[in-house]
C-alpha cells in the first residue's frame, strides 16, 4: 500500500451531503472481477451527460480545470454512505484522490479508505465550507496541505486545523503497512483463543458437524 505522509494539493469542493457509493462508482461501471480500471467510471452519473456515455458535463467539478488535477476532495456529511463496495475507494484512488475532507463518513467506506492509502479527514461542516470558499477563489494557487504526521490540515490562508484519526489507522497509512501480515504475527494468540472458545462455544466450530 502507498504510504501517506504529507500532501499539498489542489482541493475540489463537492459539497453535497450523503454522497453514496452508488454515486461514487455506479454498479454498471464495475465491469470486471478486479480492483483496477475503475477511474473512468468515477462519479459517472454526475460526470457524464448521459448514462453509459463519456460525454462530459462541464458543470461537474471534476471536469473543470484545475480541479481535474485535484488530489483532495472536500465534501458534505456522511460521505461514502451506502453500499460496502470497495470499488468506490479504488476508483477514487485510481483517479488520483489521496485525501477526503468531510464532516463525517460512512463507516465501511472510511475503513476502506485507510486500507487503500486514502486519508479520511473529519473536520466540522463550517470548516469544510470555509475551505471550499477559500479554494474556489483561485484553485490552482490556493492549495490545501494535509500532514498526517502532525494530524494537521493547513488551509490556503495559513489557518490550521487539527484532526483526529485512530492511532492504528494513522500508523497503517504512514507506514503503508499490510494489515494481514501484521495480524498474522499474532497467530499464537488466535490459536489459543480458538482452543478456549471451542470448549465454551462448541457449536460455532462446524468442522466436526456432519452435514445432513
Amino acid at each position, binding site marked *: 500500500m502507498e504510504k501517506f505522509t504529507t500532501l499539498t494539493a489542489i482541493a475540489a469542493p463537492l459539497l453535497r451531503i450523503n454522497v453514496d457509493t452508488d454515486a461514487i462508482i455506479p454498479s454498471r461501471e464495475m465491469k470486471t*472481477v478486479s480492483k483496477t480500471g475503475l477511474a473512468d467510471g468515477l462519479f459517472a452519473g454526475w460526470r457524464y451527460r448521459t448514462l453509459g456515455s463519456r460525454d462530459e458535463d462541464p458543470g461537474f467539478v471534476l471536469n473543470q480545470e484545475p480541479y481535474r488535477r485535484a488530489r483532495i476532495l472536500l465534501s458534505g456529511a456522511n460521505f461514502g*454512505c451506502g*453500499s460496502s*463496495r470497495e470499488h468506490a475507494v479504488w476508483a477514487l484512488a485510481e483517479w488520483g484522490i489521496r485525501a477526503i475532507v468531510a464532516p463525517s463518513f460512512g*463507516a465501511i467506506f472510511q475503513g476502506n479508505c485507510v486500507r487503500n492509502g486514502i486519508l479520511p479527514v473529519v473536520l466540522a461542516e463550517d470548516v469544510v465550507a470555509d475551505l471550499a470558499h477559500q479554494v474556489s477563489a483561485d484553485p490552482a494557487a490556493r492549495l490545501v496541505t494535509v500532514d498526517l504526521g502532525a494530524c494537521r490540515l493547513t488551509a490556503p490562508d495559513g489557518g490550521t486545523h487539527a484532526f483526529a484519526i485512530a492511532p492504528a489507522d494513522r500508523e497503517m497509512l504512514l507506514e503503508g503497512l499490510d*494489515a494481514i501480515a501484521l*495480524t498474522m504475527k499474532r497467530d499464537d494468540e488466535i490459536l489459543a483463543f480458538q482452543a478456549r472458545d471451542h470448549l465454551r462455544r462448541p457449536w460455532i466450530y*462446524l468442522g466436526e458437524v456432519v452435514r445432513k
Partner: protein
Amino acid sequence: MGRTIIDKLWAEHQVADLGDGTSLLYIDRVFLHERTGSVALKELAAAHRRVRNPEQVFCTMDHIVDTFPGRGDATRVPGGTAFITETRAAARAAGINLFDLGDDRQGIVHVVSPEQGIALPGVTLVCPDSHTCTLGGIGALAWGIGTTEAEHALATKTLVVRRPQSMRVRFEGTLAPGVTAKDMILKLIATHTAAGGVGYVIEFAGAAVRSLPVEARLTLCNMGVEFGAWTVIIAPDEAVFDYVRGRPYAPQGAALDQAIAHWRTLASDADARFDRELLVDCDTLAPQVTWGTSPQHAAGIDGIVPDPATESDAGRRQSMQRALAYMALTPGTPLAGLPIQAAFIGSCTNSRLSDLRAAAALLRGRQVAPGVRAICVPGSTQVRLAAEREGLHEVFLAAGFEWREAGCSMCFFAGGESFGLEERVVSSTNRNFENRQGPRTRTHLASPVTVAASAIAGRLADPRTLASRG
C-alpha cells in the same frame, strides 16, 4: 455497572486488546457473494494466502445472476458471467461452502444466512456487503466490510475493529394493522437522518420490537446501515430460539440446549448504560413511503411532498431540492395518488415468506392496474419453494405479477435489467438513491403491503384502505 449486549459480545470475541479502543475480534462466520467476494478470493489466492477455516466460510450467487425462470450462467449484466464463473472457480479452489445456481440453498446472502442457520444468535459474521446488519435481527453481531477486510477475515479469522459508541433505540407501542417493521425503520431514519447512527453500534429494543416475528426483525435491522450505524442488533429471545431450531447449520440436540443456555445470557443488563438513547412511538405510526433520493426522505403515506423552503439546515435543504428535481415532484403534492409505472417486491429487506404472504393477502382476487409492470422476486430458493407449496405464486401470477427465481434482481442496476428511464417505481427494497434501480428511475421505498396496494391502484396507495383477503 451493568453490561450491554454489545459489551458482552465484544468481550466474548476479543482475541487481543490493541489499545485505544481497538480490538482484534474473532470472526465466527464469513459469507461472500459473487459481486464482491469474487475479488476477495482472487486477491487472496494471488497473494498466496489460504482461507484459514474454509468450513466456516460460505458463498452464494445473488447479485449478478439472472432471476428469469430457467436461468443459467448467462446474465443480462454486461461482463456478469465472468463474476459467476470466476467466483465458482475461486470458491472451489478455496474449499469453502458454495450455494451455486441450481442448489436449493441459493438466494440473497442475508436471506440465506439465517434460513440455513449460518447466522446464529451471538455469532460474529461479516460479509463484503453493507446489509449484513440484517442479521442483528436474530441476535448476531454482523456487519458489512470492504473487500480488503474480507481478505483479512478469510486469512486470519479475525478483524481489527475500533469499538463504536453505543446507542439504544426503543420502539414502544403497538403497530396498527397495515403498519410493518419497514415503516418503523423508515420513520427512525426520517426523524434522525441517514447519518443519525454514524459512529454507533445500536441495540433495537422496546415492546414493538419484542412483538415482531423474527423475519420482521430482519427487515428492521436490514436498514440499520441506511441509518449510518456500524451495525444494529436485537437481543435474541424465545422467538429466535424457535426460529433457529432445525436449521441445517444450527446446533442440534444437546448442543442446541447448551447454545440456548448461552444465548439467554445475551441481553443488556437492566442497569446497562448506552452513550445515546432514542425513542420511536409506534402507536401513531402510519405506513411510510419515501419521496426523495435518500432513505431519510420518508413520510407517512397520508402525507404530502415536503417543501424544502421550510428546512432550516442548508445542506439538507439543497439535498431536498436536488431530490425533488430528480423525482419530478412539487412540494405540497399528496403522496397517496402519485401514478406509478412499476412495482417491485423483493430484496434482502422484504422478500421472505411472511412478506410474500402479506402481499398476497391483498392481491388475492385483485388485479394490478393496467400499465403497471409488477415483479415479485423471492429472496431465496427456499422462500420460492415454500411460497409455491402454499400456492402464493398463483396469487401473484393471477394478479399480473411476474414470478421470478431468487436473487437481488432489480434491487439495483448494474447495466443489465432495469426499470425504464424516469419510471416511477414503488419498491420494497432499501435504497432510493439516484439511478439505483435503473437510469433516472424514481424509486419510492415502502413495505410489501404498500407496494401491493399501490400496484393494484396504479398509484401510491395506503394499504389500510384495502381489506385483506388472506
